[in-house]
């Protein structure tokens, strides 16, 4: 049985903002956040672009380490 619940727009917006904040703080991965929003991953990335959401700090740092290692390797 499927139950459909109509969620008011302001609550949807709150949920969306909360999930994006959790993604940005590193509490949720992109995959998990997309899943929670019921979006395919590519649509989630589109959403991040539209809302100008930065990469989570841990991911950003991990990419930085990778680039430094690549630079060190020459």
């Amino acid at each position: 049985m499927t139950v459909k619940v109509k969620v008011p727009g302001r609550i949807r917006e709150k949920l969306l903002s909360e999930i994006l904040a959790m993604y940005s703080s590193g509490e949720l991965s992109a995959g998990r956040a997309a899943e929670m929003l019921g979006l395919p991953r590519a649509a989630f990335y589109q959403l991040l672009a539209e809302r100008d959401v930065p990469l989570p700090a841990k991911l950003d740092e991990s990419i930085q380490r990778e680039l430094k290692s690549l630079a060190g390797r020459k």
Partner: protein
Amino acid sequence: MCYPEKVSSARSEEDAPLPIISDASVLIHLSRIGLFSLLKSLYSELTISPSVFHEVVEKGWGLPGSKETNRAVLEGWVKVVSVVDKAESVKIAERHGIQMANAETVQLAKELKSSLVLADEEEVRRLVEEYGLEVHGCLGVLVEAAKARLITVSEATKAAEQLRGSGYRISSKTLKSFREALKLTEGR
């Protein structure tokens, strides 16, 4: 859309080059900036798990990465391979509180003794590094492509700017590290 009829499993012959595994993020991000084909030029062959195929192609049909990945599977240079030890993938997912698709990417990399994992999901990168495997994200791919002269330094820089505007908003510090890594490729 193609549905892989036969999803291969288990390790290939001993002499075969070590496979390169990708998660969904890199396939999607590079497609978004029109550079998916770099993956073929740079690595010749990629392996993905059925979960990644599902996430990018089936669930995301019509969105960036879906048609590119589907075509690559049809052309045979992206292989869809199932993990052998599914129970271990479940354990990884539970133990680290990560998504099943990400756990499968990590498990696949372990089982196939991958030489490199392409991922821009922190949880995949962290685990892959814990297992002693090398990991590259989109920016690492761009640096390698510039090193291999597949793209120029200025094309790589432009691509990084495009990525920043398409849901991959790295910090200025990371952009600086990227530029430094690229600069070193110029003198090669």
